């Protein structure tokens, strides 16, 4: 189990603020570092448990226990133990770093940031800590602060691939797609073979206005090529076409998250006599209602946050998974490296960091639909296209969504356009397009709402961008983050949603529609540029889908000019959506079941 060394090495070998001295701590960390099996980890833990039971209180022993508990996947106990150590030892860097490291693999992002900020003040010269802090800030959508830290580190320490890649991701989130692409390319130029820099390019490219399907596929393929492969193992799955199948779900987001809301109903709708679900998951919380639904629908629930990709490949063998569905892609908790080593004879990519094709030769299929990937799009994907008869997702609206209210234009006397997508999707061309619409409807307003706009400097920059396009501040309202219900309630102020492009809204579009707000979209070439197209077509609103910027502008103008029609549509939209295939879980479940069976049959018949 080589992963053990990797797991601890980063902490054992670094730490500018604290070198290890001979003694209890060095001894304990050395024992941990030389442990190569889970049984060995348990043995060391048992030894430390005995030491803890003594009357003396030794923070080093508790630190060791915390590390070992984390290695065993006992995350809650690890956090409790490490937090206690940090309280006792106050400003000691090593416990704080371990604590932050474990926390960063949970959803306790604010606490992670707080701890990393504290470590940063204690170990000013440590670039890795600054980088980790920036990542935590990014997870909190505080991209301006992250950008500032990363720029500072670069100016002090010179170019570093990890820092450049994070900077690229931060810049794109701030809506600077050009800067992000340039930074990702700089990282790639400095380290062309590194997975990190190739992944950064894959992450930022789909947001750029010049992206094409082939360019994105090429970037994804290059990223997939950089993944480490081990010699392939023999897959002994029984090639019986009709037998019950074991479906593996690989994801760090089986919870209240876009992936959860878009997929949970589908898995619930699968016939348990025909499909056993095995969830390979990370960062789950039993308090989360979507997680609970997944857990109830699944036969096995396996936490994999603490194990390496290599260990994951070994682990999965025990469960004889027939079809592996990846819902993580190249995201934070993504396990594409494990997929590259085949976790199952049939591997399917579905939602979750799915801007386009995975580019991974070992990913056999991509679950899609005829609107996402119409006939003729096959060459833009490395996978075979597993097309669903309706849409490619099944939306579960949140039960706390507010009721739909009447069209605000009736009360206001003017039309309000809106967009609640994140700034990464709002390119200069998108802003120019919206400005043209607003210039053509002089009374209209625009409301944008997203996390990044909580930052006043970011909001100010956007106000100025729009002003330079002839849209004064008085006609624009920029809103920052809020709770999810409050976000959905904000649609009460919107008459028509303007979808961004080339990266369209996914969950955001579903939420707008659920709140009675129709969406004008521009269909593009990559997968991410056609989410809204799929959702709108799936509920019978294909006339809101456009093929060019000029058509997008004309449609927005035409649709927003008919207030009566908008009002009627708004009042009926939720019910229409509820009755459409987009929210029809049983219908989706049948189609999903058939699609999975089709993929399985193809493998059984040796057609892959």
């Amino acid at each position: 189990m080589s992963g053990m060394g990797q797991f601890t090495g980063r902490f054992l070998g670094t730490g500018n603020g604290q070198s290890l001295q001979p003694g209890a701590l060095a001894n304990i960390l050395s024992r941990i570092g030389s442990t190569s099996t889970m049984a060995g980890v348990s043995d060391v833990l048992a030894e430390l448990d005995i030491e803890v039971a003594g009357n003396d209180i030794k923070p080093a022993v508790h630190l060791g226990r915390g590390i070992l508990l984390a290695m065993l996947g006992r995350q809650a106990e690890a956090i409790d133990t490490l937090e206690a150590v940090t309280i006792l030892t106050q400003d000691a860097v090593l416990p704080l770093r371990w604590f932050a490291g474990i926390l960063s693999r949970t959803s306790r992002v604010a606490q992670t940031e707080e701890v990393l900020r504290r470590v940063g003040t204690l170990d000013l010269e440590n670039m890795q800590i600054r980088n980790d802090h920036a990542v935590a800030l990014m997870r909190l959508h505080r991209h301006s602060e992250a950008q500032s830290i990363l720029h500072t580190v670069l100016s002090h320490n010179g170019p570093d691939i990890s820092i450049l890649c994070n900077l690229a991701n931060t810049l794109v989130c701030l809506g600077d797609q050009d800067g992000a692409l340039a930074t990702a390319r700089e990282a790639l130029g400095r380290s062309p073979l590194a997975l990190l820099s190739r992944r950064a390019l894959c992450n930022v490219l789909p947001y750029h206005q010049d992206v094409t399907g082939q360019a994105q596929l090429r970037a994804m393929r290059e990223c997939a090529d950089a993944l480490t492969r081990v010699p392939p193992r023999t897959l002994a799955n029984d090639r019986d076409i009709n037998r019950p199948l074991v479906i593996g779900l690989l994801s760090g987001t089986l919870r209240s998250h876009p992936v959860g809301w878009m997929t949970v109903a589908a898995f619930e709708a699968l016939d348990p006599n025909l499909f056993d679900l095995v969830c390979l998951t990370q960062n789950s919380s039993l308090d989360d209602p979507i997680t609970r639904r997944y857990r109830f629908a699944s036969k096995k629930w396996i936490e994999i946050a603490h194990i390496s990709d290599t260990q994951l490949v070994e682990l999965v063998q025990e469960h004889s998974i027939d079809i592996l569905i990846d819902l993580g892609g190249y995201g934070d908790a993504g396990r594409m490296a494990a997929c590259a080593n085949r976790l199952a004879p049939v591997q399917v990519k579905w939602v979750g960091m799915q801007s386009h094709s995975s580019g991974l030769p070992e990913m056999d299929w991509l679950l899609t639909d005829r609107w996402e990937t119409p006939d003729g799009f096959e060459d833009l994907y490395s996978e075979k296209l597993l097309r669903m008869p309706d849409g490619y997702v099944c939306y579960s609206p949140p039960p706390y969504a507010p009721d739909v209210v009447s069209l605000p234009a009736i009360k206001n006397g003017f039309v309000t356009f809106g967009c609640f997508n994140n700034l990464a999707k709002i390119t200069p061309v998108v802003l120019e397009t919206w400005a043209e619409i607003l210039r053509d409807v002089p009374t209209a307003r625009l409301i944008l709402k997203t996390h990044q706009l909580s930052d006043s400097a970011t909001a100010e920059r956007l106000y100025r961008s729009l002003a330079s396009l002839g849209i004064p501040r008085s006609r624009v309202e920029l809103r920052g983050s809020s709770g999810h219900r409050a976000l959905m309630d904000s649609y009460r102020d919107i008459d028509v949603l303007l979808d961004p492009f080339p990266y369209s809204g996914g969950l955001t579009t579903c939420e707008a529609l659920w709140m009675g707000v129709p969406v004008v979209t521009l269909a593009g070439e990559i997968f991410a540029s056609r989410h809204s197209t799929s959702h709108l077509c799936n509920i019978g609103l294909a006339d809101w889908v456009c093929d060019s910027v000029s058509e997008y502008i004309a449609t927005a103008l035409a649709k927003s000019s008919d207030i009566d029609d908008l009002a009627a549509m708004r009042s009926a939209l939720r019910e229409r959506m509820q009755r459409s295939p987009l929210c029809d879980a049983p219908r989706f479940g049948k189609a999903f079941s058939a699609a999975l069976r089709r993929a399985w049959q193809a493998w059984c018949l040796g057609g892959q």
Partner: protein
Amino acid sequence: MDDIPISATLDTIRDRIAELINEGRGDAALPLLAAARVLGMRPSEIRFLRGRLHIQAGRLREATTDIDAAMSSAPLDTALLKCRSALRRRTGDREGAVKDAAEAVIADPRDPEAKLFLGQALVEFGRGAEGLSCLANALQIAPKDSRYWEALAAALDTEGDPDAALSVLEDGIRIFPGHLSVRNRAVLLCIQRGNFAAAAQIAEQARAAGIVDASTLGMAGHVLVSLGEFERAAASFREALKLCPEDRNLSRLVATTENRTDTSNTPAIFLRAIFDGYAEQFEVHVLSLRYSVPVSIRKLLLAHPKIAAAESIGPALDLGCGTGLIALAVEDLGIGPFTGIDLAPKMLAQAKAKGLYTELIENDIISELSVSTRRWPLILAADVICYFGALDEILSQTLRSLADGGWFVFSAERPAFDLRVEGVEDRAWVRIRHGRYAHTEHYIFESLSAAGFQILHMEQLPIRQEAGINVPGLLFAAQRVDRDVRPRVQ
């Protein structure tokens, strides 16, 4: 020598221990407590904190030892007095709870929590008027803490003034619009009063306010069934099921309400909401209602051949054990060890505190019995059957769980003669108030026979009092017997 010394001060550690205990993270506090001892924290303080950790973990006996020891060196410490008062309430020492809380109030008359504790203890001790006055006074001092509103409402309800209780809760909802438990209490109170329309309205207001909770939705579904609004009830149950997907009763309710039939039993989350909300006061409440079932079951069990022969009988399974009243009533008859099943963790905590159960299982009865392979010589069910409508499943599962010759002793509620429910005479069972069901004697008799039981004993009896009026009930003993063995009819 350790590489990383302890650099935190005792004050810092003390504060963090308290914070961690308040957050319910006792495991994180333990190493700190050990460190505090090394750093010289006073033994009484350590015992106080350790006592709190024991309370949190449900180890009430150990908690009592520690808190008593801590108090021996600081008898007038308000925090200790409050802590012990709460502990004593949990262990059933009501007089002691009143005494400690009263001393806490004397020590710090402006401490609203001391008055809260005193008020609650007084109500439970039977001095309702004083308790209410105390709780009202506490609320005046701390109107921005929802606990005080809930406590006053609960006390008013206990003292027989549900109108005033509801009024307090309605004020509480206005002041704490996002507070779930205040709304749930209000819904529950309306259900208990049989005012389903008001309950539905409060539940709907909660939904519109964005409050999404399985208990609220489950109660709403139940209420809507009562109002005959099956489609809305099904929708409500479906949403509850999304939040509580493992609840089998709920999934059955979704199916039954979708088919527009009557419901067959009460959803587990509904019971959990009722009993968890009541756990601390439940025992007092049922005793104050002259709850006679435990005593009646005891009398009936005296006729058991083994007990009559002074032999021990067991193990015994207590279905819906609640706070453990049955075990308390019969354990000296040589019955045991006891295993209890209940849905409500707070009730189970009280049962555990009685020290009479070797095993307590948090689950719904059907779910537990359907997967268990154990066979019991004695199964008891006091005030449990009334949470099931149709009895086929509970009886067949119970029969399956009985050893050959095993006894099933249970109480049931009969429809009151003046119950104005349409068609009640023609029905085997009827839904009444508080999410309960009343069953006809004939129906239970037939159901037991159909399930394969031999009926040993049946009697009519008042099972408790409500508003001073006897609630009619039934007591049964039934036996699982081999076909070729004649039952011992009493």
